[in-house]
């Protein structure tokens, strides 16, 4: 208890808006040490709680087509980072950077979404966020 009184908790916010779940545990489903990047055509966009979702049709280097599901943080957090229901359009090409699923599925948690023209949707989570450096 005394140790805790001297200690300041630095909440792991990962850039001001947490990746923590709305429901299921981030730590259980995603690998916080493995950030991947996937580029594909948007096939669906769900902007609803507990998590938004972006479906991507991804062309692999060997010519195959993979279906990826990208899970976002809760829309209320996305709104506070500049997202809206209209932020993503079916058919547009996005590059999604995020945390890979632990079980190897084509499933990831969004950190940053970038349009084909280079613009970033909303304010991305900072993968390099170091809570020890925050006041």
């Amino acid at each position, binding site marked *: 208890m005394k140790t805790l*009184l001297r200690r300041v908790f630095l*909440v792991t916010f990962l850039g001001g808006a947490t990746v923590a*779940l709305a429901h299921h545990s*981030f*730590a*259980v489903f995603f690998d916080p040490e493995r950030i991947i990047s996937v580029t594909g055509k948007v096939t669906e966009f769900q902007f609803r709680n507990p998590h938004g*979702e972006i479906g991507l049709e991804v062309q692999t280097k060997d010519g195959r087509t993979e279906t990826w599901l990208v899970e976002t943080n*809760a829309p209320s957090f996305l709104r506070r980072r500049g997202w809206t229901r209209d932020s993503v359009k079916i058919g547009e090409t996005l590059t999604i950077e995020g945390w890979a699923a632990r079980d190897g*599925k084509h499933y990831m948690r969004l950190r940053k979404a970038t349009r084909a023209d280079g613009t970033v949707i909303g304010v991305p989570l900072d993968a390099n966020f170091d809570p020890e450096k925050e006041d």
Partner: protein
Amino acid sequence: MRSTLGVLALACALALTATVTQAAEKDSANASRASHDSTVRTRAGRPDLSGFWDLSRTQRPDAGLVAKLPANTVLLEDTGATEFPPGEFGGLKVKPDALAAAHRWKPEDDMTVSRACQPPSIVYATQGPFPFEIHQGTDLIVFKYEYFDLVRIIFMDGRPHPPADAPHSKVGHSVGRWEGDELVVDTTHLSAATITNNGLSHSDRVHVVERFKLSPDGGTLMSTMWFEDPEVLENRGARYIEWTRKPGEYVYPYECDPSFGSKYTQAK
């Protein structure tokens, strides 16, 4: 003689001056502290907790609040985004049946249409990171959480909890009282739900006591949430949670869509 009297008079004058100066400094210090205590108060003179509260980036456990936690309590360090991995419960000593159930838990079991929109109870729901609003009256204080649209009523009129067989819910039945400038909230009648979001659940006999305290400038709401559950735990648990007031903001509706629960199983 004259010189001695003069010295004595001078000494007395100096002593008197020092005393007056010290008193003036003390009054000034008190006035300074008083002027820094800008706590907004209700007409009843209570600290006004009303407003929008967002989880503070930095959590600084308040020594006064922590000292009031009962004996045999472990302070969980998972406020906000931090989550315990499966099998880790932050120092909680779990009874055998509950521990076995926690070990049987599979995370994918929660990723179904029937479970995707099952909210946790306030034991887990309030540890962050979602914001909430407080609407404070004299006989009622309402907490409106963004997370799963949970709404709590804190009865401040001295009523007791209802009988044990009264309905249970994820927000339970809460009665509150003021201890000086601290709001103390006692909650029972919570339905079983997760404690640490990794398979460990409390029973419907869990008992929760929260203490809320405003910072002197009124911008920070500090709290401890303590809980005991003799059916599940050998010891007791608590969390320190601190929020920052953000005027002009509101909670968004959550309106959970259970179809999310089917998505994970579709991924290959």
